[in-house]
C-alpha cells in the first residue's frame, strides 16, 4: 500500500494550472451573478410605485366621480351622523386631528354606533418635500386595508409622520416596516405598494375634495357642511349632536 502511494505520480503542473483556471472561472461566475443580483435590487428602488395621481376620465361629472371615489369608513353604516374628513398623511394638522380629535370622536360617537366616520384621501402633493409622499402614503394605507389593517396603519403613518414624509426616496422601506408593525403580511403589502393599485381611487378622492371646495387639510364635513373649527372638539361634537337631533349642552 505504502509502495503504491510512493509510486503515485505528482500532479503535473498543467493540472494545477487547470485547477486554478477552474477556480478563477467559478469566482468570475459568482461575481457576475452577485453583481447582477445587486444591480437588479438597486434598479428596483422605488420600483413601479405609483406616487402621483393618475389620469381618469369623467372627473368633471359628479355622478361618475362619486362612483369612483371611495372613502374608508368606520362605525355604524346606519348611523344618522356622518363625519367626513379630507386628509393627507403628510399634513401635520391632519396628524393633530387624528391624534387629538379623532380618539374622542371615536369614543363618544363612532364606537357606540351614533356616528359614521369616513376618511377621504386628499394628498396635497405639490413641489414641496413635505407633501411629496402623501399620495403613496394614501395608497399604502389602502394596501394595509386590503388586509384589514387600514386604521392601524393610519395611526402608525401619523405617529411616524416625520420619519417618512421627508425621505428623499419613496418611503417603501418605512411603509413595509409599518406593515409588519401592524401585523400585515409584508410581502403581500409590498406587492400592492409596488404597483398602481388604488391610484385611481386616491386620485378620485382628491378630485371629489376639489369639487366639494376642499382647499386645505384637514377639511371636516358633518351633515354635508364643512366645520370651520376642526381643531376644536367642542365644535365637532356640537355639529354631530345637531345631526343626531340633540342639543349640545351649554
Amino acid at each position, binding site marked *: 500500500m505504502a509502495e503504491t502511494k510512493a509510486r503515485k505520480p505528482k500532479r503535473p503542473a498543467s493540472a494545477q494550472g487547470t485547477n486554478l483556471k477552474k*477556480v478563477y472561472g467559478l*469566482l468570475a461566475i*459568482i*461575481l457576475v451573478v*452577485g453583481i447582477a443580483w445587486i444591480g437588479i435590487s438597486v434598479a428596483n428602488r*422605488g420600483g413601479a410605485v405609483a406616487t402621483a395621481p393618475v389620469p381618469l376620465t369623467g372627473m368633471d361629472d359628479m355622478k361618475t366621480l362619486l362612483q369612483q371615489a371611495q372613502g374608508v369608513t368606520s362605525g355604524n353604516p346606519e348611523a344618522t351622523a356622518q363625519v367626513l374628513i379630507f386628509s393627507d398623511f403628510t399634513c401635520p394638522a391632519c396628524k393633530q386631528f387624528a391624534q387629538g380629535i379623532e380618539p374622542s370622536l371615536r369614543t363618544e360617537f363612532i364606537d357606540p354606533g351614533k356616528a359614521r366616520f369616513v376618511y377621504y384621501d386628499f394628498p396635497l402633493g405639490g413641489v414641496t418635500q413635505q407633501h411629496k409622499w402623501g399620495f403613496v402614503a394614501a395608497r399604502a394605507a389602502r394596501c394595509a386595508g386590503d388586509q384589514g389593517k387600514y386604521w392601524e396603519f393610519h395611526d402608525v403613518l401619523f405617529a411616524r409622520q416625520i420619519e417618512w414624509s421627508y425621505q428623499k426616496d419613496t418611503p417603501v422601506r418605512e411603509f413595509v416596516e409599518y406593515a*409588519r408593525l401592524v401585523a400585515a403580511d409584508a410581502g403581500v403589502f*409590498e406587492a400592492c405598494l409596488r404597483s398602481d393599485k388604488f391610484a385611481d381611487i386616491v386620485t378620485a378622492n382628491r378630485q371629489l375634495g376639489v369639487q366639494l371646495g376642499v382647499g386645505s387639510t384637514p377639511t371636516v364635513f358633518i351633515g354635508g357642511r364643512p366645520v370651520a373649527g376642526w381643531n376644536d372638539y367642542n365644535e365637532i361634537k356640537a355639529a354631530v349632536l345637531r345631526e343626531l337631533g340633540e342639543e349640545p349642552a351649554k
Partner: protein
Amino acid sequence: MTAAEMTGDANAQNVASPALNRMGMALFSLIGVLIAAYMSLYKLGVIQTLACGTGACEVVQESPWADFLGIPVPFWGVGGYGLLLAASLAGMQPGRNGDRRIAAVLFGSATIAFVFSGYLSWIEATRILAWCRWCIGSAVVASALFLLSLPEIGRLRGGRG
C-alpha cells in the same frame, strides 16, 4: 484535497501547487463579500427593501445590534471578507503555499469571522428574536471559511515565514 494539504505539512507539499483549501476560501470569501455588499447597500439606502423570505431582515438591520463599534455590521463584513478574499487569492499563487504570513491572516481572519458571526447569531436568537436569511447565509459562509482555514495551522507551524 491531499493529506499533506489537509494537515498543512508544507514540507510534504509541492510548494508550487496551489492549496485547495485556499481555493475554497476564495470562493466562500467572494460569496461573503457579495452578501455583505448587498446588506451595506441596504444600510446606505441604495437598496430599498431586502429580499427576505422570513421577513425579519429589516428588523435585524434596524436593531440596536446592527452597528458594531459605531460602524454598521455589514461594513465590517465587506472589510473582513474582502481581506480573506485578497489573502486567499494571494495564497493561491505559485510558491505561496508555505507563506506563514498568509496562513496567519487566513486563519486569524476566519476565526474572528466565525466567532463574530456566532455572536451575531446568538444575538438574533436571544435578543432580537428575529432571523435574517442573509445573516444566516453569512454565518454559514464564516463557518465554512473557518473549517477551510484549519489546514493553515499546519502551515503556521511548519511553513516558511
